[in-house]
């Protein structure tokens, strides 16, 4: 009988603490902080000047010359770099035309080519339509990252870009799994990408949602998030397909839960109803009891409201067991990468499962009674990890929870 199981066979990432998955595992274990001064644009007159920037990002270190970088934004390049890494790890490169025809791409997007368009927009304000230059605006669309990946690799499977703000990357992975289960593609390239840019930076500053120094998830003195940038990509395929071609399997995507707060555009629902519903739906989708979860990669933005809400939601879903489940925020190291966050965090979960360790919540100094779970403060720990839940919550009340499991030949729950 055809199995319905979907597995992860490749991973790729570019972020503030690593430019590939191997380096990311080492940096997560070491508790590396990627937060520093933002230099990709002028941060004068903002509440903060810090961010989790990918310093000295050079697309050509990742993307061979065979692929033109023409009209590709920083965001497009980071996504392409992570996609190439993930495909290579999956043993799919060079991609044959037959396989490319059965491969699709789903990307969680954010600001897209905004960074490149901003100076052009400033000129448009002064001089009107004549000031619009063709090439930066060609990369403006948030859909362009998926377009470039599909075009460069000659993919002919389904292509979609999700724009659900901070849950885009997680939603993209959940949908890619659906597409494989439906038989719409054999292989899916999925994840998210997000650049630092002025518009986003000033928006979060104006909302006073950023910590002036650095984010401190679950800490009593937390004052907000730190924006970051980067990309995370997973290669998904059906278990049957992975087996047929003898691919290495890093984990299984067990479940996905999506919900909406329907409460407030930017503030999380203090009752955590939407978060609870997303986590519960992911568990139900996977068909596993809450007791089987070994680690939770939290949304953990470090805004006072999010962290309080999220911990409350975890306690509601997991009950007394919540005290025995480590919950950490990797945003303490790589910042909040918005549209890419769910995807980079999914890569972190893959690495935690592969190397059997808990990524830490760094900058956590003063415990907060509203966040009184094991947040893996300061240092990574070794642990037995079979099942991981990853949360992503967003503006608009868009919540997505993903459930990953260590691959077990006999452990199909479907």
């Amino acid at each position: 009988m055809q199995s319905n199981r979907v597995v992860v066979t490749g991973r790729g990432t570019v972020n503030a603490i690593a430019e590939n998955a191997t380096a990311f595992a080492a940096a997560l274990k070491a508790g590396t902080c990627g937060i520093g001064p933002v230099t990709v644009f002028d941060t004068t007159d903002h509440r903060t000047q810090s961010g989790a920037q990918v310093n000295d990002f050079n697309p050509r270190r990742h993307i061979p010359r065979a692929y033109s970088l023409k009209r590709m934004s920083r965001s497009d390049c980071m996504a392409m770099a992570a996609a190439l890494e993930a495909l290579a790890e999956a043993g799919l490169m060079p991609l044959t035309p037959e396989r490319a025809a059965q491969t699709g791409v789903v990307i969680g997007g954010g600001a897209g080519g905004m960074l490149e368009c901003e100076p052009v927009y400033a000129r448009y304000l002064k001089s009107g339509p004549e000031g619009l230059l063709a090439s930066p605006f060609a990369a403006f669309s948030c859909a362009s990252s998926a377009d470039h990946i599909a075009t460069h690799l000659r993919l002919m499977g389904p292509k979609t870009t999700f724009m659900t703000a901070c849950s885009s990357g997680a939603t993209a992975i959940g949908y890619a799994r659906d597409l494989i289960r439906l038989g719409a593609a054999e292989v899916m390239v999925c994840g998210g990408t997000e650049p630092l840019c002025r518009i986003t930076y000033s928006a979060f500053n104006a909302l006073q949602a950023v910590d002036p120094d650095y984010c401190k998830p679950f800490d009593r003195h937390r004052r907000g998030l730190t924006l970051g940038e980067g990309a995370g990509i997973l290669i998904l395929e059906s278990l049957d397909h992975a087996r047929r071609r003898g691919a290495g399997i890093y984990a299984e995507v067990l479940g996905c839960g999506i919900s909406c707060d329907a409460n407030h555009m930017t503030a999380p629902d203090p009752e955590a109803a939407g978060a609870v519903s997303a986590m519960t739906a992911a568990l139900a989708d996977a068909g596993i009891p809450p007791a089987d979860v070994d680690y939770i990669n939290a949304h953990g933005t470090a805004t006072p409201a999010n962290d309080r809400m999220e911990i409350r939601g975890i306690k509601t879903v997991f009950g007394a067991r919540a005290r025995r489940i480590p919950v950490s925020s990797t945003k303490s190291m790589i910042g909040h990468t918005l549209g890419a966050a769910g995807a980079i965090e999914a890569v972190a979960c893959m690495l935690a499962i592969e190397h059997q360790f808990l990524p830490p919540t760094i900058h956590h100094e003063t415990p907060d009674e509203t966040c009184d779970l094991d947040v893996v403060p300061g240092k990574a720990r070794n642990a037995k990890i079979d099942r991981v839940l990853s949360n992503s919550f967003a503006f608009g009340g868009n919540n997505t929870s993903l459930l990953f499991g260590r691959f077990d030949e006999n452990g199909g729950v479907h």
Partner: protein
Amino acid sequence: MNRRVVVTGMGLVSPLGVGRQAFADNLFRGACGIRPIERFATTAFKSHMGGEIRDFSPRDFISGRNMRRMDRLSRMVTASARMAVEDAALDLDGTDRQRVGLVIGTAFGPVDIAVQFADALFGEGPRRVNPILVPNTVMNAPAGHAAIELGLRGINSTVNHREASAETAIAYAAMQIRENRADVVLAGGGDILSPFLLAVLERFMALSPQNGGDERARPFDRHRNGPVSGEGAGLLCLESLESARSRGAGIYCEMAGWGMSSAPAPANDWTGDPAGPVLAMQKALALADAGTADIDALSAAASGGINADRLEGLALERLFMRGPKPVVTSIKGALGEIFASGGIRAAAMALSVHDDMVPPTLGLTSPIISLDTVQTTARRMSVKYGMINACASGGTFAALVLRKFDEG
């Protein structure tokens, strides 16, 4: 899971009218929603026409407190959502709201608010930006607002792929119902006209009247000279058949299949190879368990674009090379290019399948395709299967197949 998905309602804020009745009347009598743009001055542009929304009173559909917080696109989407729920006679209070979702496609989101925010940032500096604007600068603002207004706590997503945004959203929504993650999903999308967008589109999309001539949308016409831009929103109420049956809902048609594909394309531009759109339509047919000969009517993506229409024309001729062929129409001749037009276009096709009538392709007099096209006036004919095709620049394709509802 393999649940059947049906269409039980529709809500529209379109250049052809607000609400199903006005939309259907204007669509089938061959009215044109494209007129001189009135909302802003077009003196700086070569394009002056648009499928603009007029006579839309959001307060008829949205509570005052929520409405004041909404941008223009969010109002159109939320009003459409309200209308779709009412058209489906869905009693939300008697429904598990965690099983009712919303999926919105949009190419540009609330671009007017993003521009206002950017104007302050780049004109006056970071200290002068208005935080009140921020929630409405994100693309998922319309889906968030509509969920709040209607209390929809189920799956909620916003997808973006230029001209294929809303068809992709509908495919995603149908899949979530099929996979049992929701019983009801309002799905479709919308986009708005704005001066900045018109500037961008004129510069990169070559709107009509590119190469001179008069300004007009002429889908599939030999003398087409670029699309005319448009705005609006449209949502379908998609529902599992068991949910629709259990509450005795009226059914417009079945959402029988959907397919998506991509193909290599120049950035932001059109490929000349019809393999991509052919593949998306084939996938939709396969899922619907139908063949090309089954399709009676096809709603094309053609908007009057020089390269886009040529690509789609080639794809249709290749796919329907042998055997019985569908009748082809494009309602973008009446709406303009709304980008996330899939909700409106799918609503039109749901009406065609339900009422056995195919709307005309306004602006089409000398077709570049050999298939039978409906021109000038609507055609009464049996429509058991209707297909909606979507093509987006950058090489993204989606197709939907609707089938006349049959209890079996």
